[in-house]
């Protein structure tokens, strides 16, 4: 015997963005954008405002039409899914509610249109912590409350995939922590989570994979740790500098000799220490000189002129 409250099996779903191009009049907003987001992971879609994040996500959800290319869920477009709201939940803006309608009535109308069990309305209100405000008009909601309502609409169909555009915008620090926990648990259940942000720092502890877009082009795709490894910059010196450089190079690092020691790129400070120990070289200096993730992100997304 199963009831509607029985936790369902998540269908692992791969989101594929394939060669998307979007031209608005004279402006090319997206150029050949390709990446994917896998099940059980949180993919952060990052880039400055106006880089093309929202355009990409709106095309993915069938709201906007691509000039070229496709965006698919396990090989099918959103509108071709048999029951789209049960497969994919989207929250694209906190500004999509009638100010005179209550949050609960908004969710009810979405549930009716999408063929979702009405009992889910109260369940998601509970999940996002909006029960007390549910019967009040959305016009009186704060931005953070509207973000929660948007997330509630996305969760309504108990979907396999969540597509969230700037979900952290307008949340207070408590709200950001809450959102992080919720998003992590959704991915842990096997769902695919694709969320965008213009601030890497705010989603750094949330995402597994990172896609960086700048001026409508993808400039980085990979895991967060790849992005972090790319930022590693270590200063090291030892008794036998030549042997140390040799050992580090063999460990895969790029070594730049300097007057006061070696600059090591490509491996982090812990790995550098291990290599020196394994090679039996006593160190006289070891320091982490990394710029940090945020500055790498800024460098990736900066305009050509200001790139270091």
């Amino acid at each position, binding site marked *: 015997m199963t009831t509607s409250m029985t936790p369902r099996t998540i269908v692992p779903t791969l989101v594929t963005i394939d060669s998307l191009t979007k031209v608005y009049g004279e402006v090319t907003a997206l150029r050949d954008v390709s990446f994917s987001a896998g099940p059980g992971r949180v993919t952060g879609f990052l880039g400055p405002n106006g880089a093309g994040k929202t355009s990409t996500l709106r095309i993915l959800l069938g709201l906007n039409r691509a000039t070229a290319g496709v965006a698919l869920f396990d090989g099918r477009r959103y509108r071709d899914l048999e029951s789209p709201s049960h497969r994919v939940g989207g929250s694209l803006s906190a500004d999509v509610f009638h100010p005179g309608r209550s949050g609960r009535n908004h969710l009810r109308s979405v549930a009716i249109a*999408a063929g979702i069990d009405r009992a889910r309305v109260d369940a998601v209100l509970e999940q996002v912590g909006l029960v007390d405000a549910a019967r009040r008009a959305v016009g009186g909601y704060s931005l953070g409350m509207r973000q929660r309502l948007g997330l509630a609409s996305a969760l309504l169909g108990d979907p396999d995939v969540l597509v969230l555009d700037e979900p952290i915008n307008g949340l207070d620090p408590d709200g950001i922590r809450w959102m992080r926990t919720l998003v992590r648990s959704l991915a842990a259940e096997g769902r695919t989570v694709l969320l965008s942000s213009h601030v890497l720092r705010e989603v750094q502890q949330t995402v597994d994979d990172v896609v960086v877009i700048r001026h409508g082009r993808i400039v980085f795709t990979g895991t967060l740790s790849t992005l972090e490894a790319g930022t590693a910059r270590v200063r090291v010196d030892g008794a036998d500098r030549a042997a140390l450089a040799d050992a580090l190079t063999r460990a895969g690092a790029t070594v730049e000799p300097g007057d006061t020691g070696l600059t090591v790129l490509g491996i982090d400070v812990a790995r550098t220490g291990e290599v020196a120990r394994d090679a039996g070289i006593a160190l006289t200096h070891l320091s982490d000189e990394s710029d940090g993730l945020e500055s790498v992100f800024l460098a990736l997304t900066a305009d050509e002129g200001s790139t270091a």
Partner: protein
Amino acid sequence: MTATPSVNSTVATGTSTGTGLARATAAEFAKVFSLTSWWLLGLIMVVYVGITAAALAFFFSDLGAQLTSAGSGAPAAQLDAVDAATLVYSSVTAVGLVIPLLFGALLATTEYRHHTLTPTVLAQPRRGIVLAGKGVVAALMGALYGVAGLIGSVGFGAPVLAALGEPTALGEPEVTAVLLRTVLATALWSLIGLGFGALLTSQIAAIVIVLAFTQFVEPILRVVASVWEWSAALGRFLPGSATDALVGAGILSSLGALDPSAPSAAVDALLWWQGGLVLAALVTVLLLAASLTTMRRDVE
């Protein structure tokens, strides 16, 4: 993975176009009834049409007396009692069409004004079904506003007629036909509003144009059109004239008919079903144009 059947396999069976339309319609009703504008419009309809009907009832009983006694020229055509009562009851279409028209226009443009088209299209990605659902709601709510208008026109007009000693003519088959076709007319005007709003998308522009057209532009056009025979022939196809033909009564039509020497008198009026077809054609053109243009655009 366990062998637990997924929700998807059970919901996938209920997603045919038919149930999609039923859901889209039910969702549109839920949206309408969760705001206050629908019953405010209904209340305005009852009161506005009621006051107009009461005034007309008073005016026609008085006018009837004056027309028979005034001998300042050719004997004027006299309104018989049934025609007078019909005119009173048809205040719904004489002054009240703006209400279903506004309702239909708001049904479409609210989605653009408050960006609610995004959740609407996410819940039902087939935009044709979204528009069809709105069409069903517009027609049914338009009919409801017709009933509200009749509550006003009969509820206020008939007692005034009776108080002034005029027959109310209620129960006469031709009066009953007028009442029924009034409901059809308001349903069609609500659909015209929907098509117009869906095509225009701007709520402010839609409201301004709807008010300007129904209150000023069309009445002036109809008066001007009645000056020449050729323009009177074309004027019959103006939405307001077609509505008078459909309902079988209208103040502007009756004023023209009072003067047998007017050029418009030489032009055969449209039959009631022809009037209905003119309005239905307008609905079809507007909705088709919207579904081919604005409804295909990117949702902002």
